[in-house]
């Protein structure tokens, strides 16, 4: 019954904009990181269980798919961190004009990419 009523906003009618894409990206990265914290707990539990359990988890983390996931996880983490700080600034009704929102969006994208690359340069160097 409720499903027959029109729902808003009808996302398929909108051209993607930096604001809407980053807003959805914040949710998507948040959901991804929520899965990540379960991975963190699993990793800690495996270390508490014993060496063989820990070796199994470490082998997955350091496999090629595991390393790719770790790289993506850091990108997702830095994006959610930077955009989260942007949200905290907005909560104080700062940087809330349309130009500021766009400038902030590009700063967040640039900073999260730079932090991700910087971290991996630090790790691998």
């Amino acid at each position, binding site marked *: 019954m*409720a499903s027959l009523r029109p729902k808003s906003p009808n996302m398929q009618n909108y051209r993607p904009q930096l604001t809407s894409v980053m807003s959805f990206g914040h949710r998507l990265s948040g959901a991804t990181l929520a899965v990540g914290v379960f991975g963190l707990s699993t990793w800690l539990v495996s270390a508490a269980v014993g060496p063989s359990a820990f070796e199994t988890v470490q082998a997955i983390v350091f496999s090629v798919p595991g390393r790719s996931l770790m790289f993506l996880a850091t990108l997702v983490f830095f994006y959610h961190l930077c955009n989260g700080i942007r949200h905290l600034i907005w909560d104080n009704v700062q940087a809330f004009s349309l130009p500021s929102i766009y400038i902030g969006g590009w700063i967040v994208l640039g900073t999260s990419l730079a932090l991700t690359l910087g971290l991996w340069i630090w790790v691998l160097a």
Partner: protein
Amino acid sequence: MGAGMTAPRGTPAAARGLGAAGHGTGHWLAQRASALALVPLTLWFVAALANDAATDLASLSAWLTSPINAILMILLLIAAFHHAALGLRVMAEDYVHSRARFAIIALIQLVCFGGAVAGIVATLLIAIDS
């Protein structure tokens, strides 16, 4: 209101029982408070991992033997799982329109609580055992 009459739309009686009334502020504040806590805690954790704190079991055990590291790890787990539970709940509220919504929200709370407890107990065991 007399017997046989239904509440008109837009009255408090029509809205009662259909959603949060007065609980939203607490949720909002808890999300921001956990977010603020996670800024230094996650950066500390990522920096520690990048600094080879846990390349193998011996180094992870040695790292968590330090009370400061164990405490920060537990604080990170509490803040992260709390923040995750709050965020996932909003997604369920926004996207699940069926009767499964209540069950899904309850499941989110339980699973996040379980994940936090598992991580905290594991941290304590590693810290004490080594």
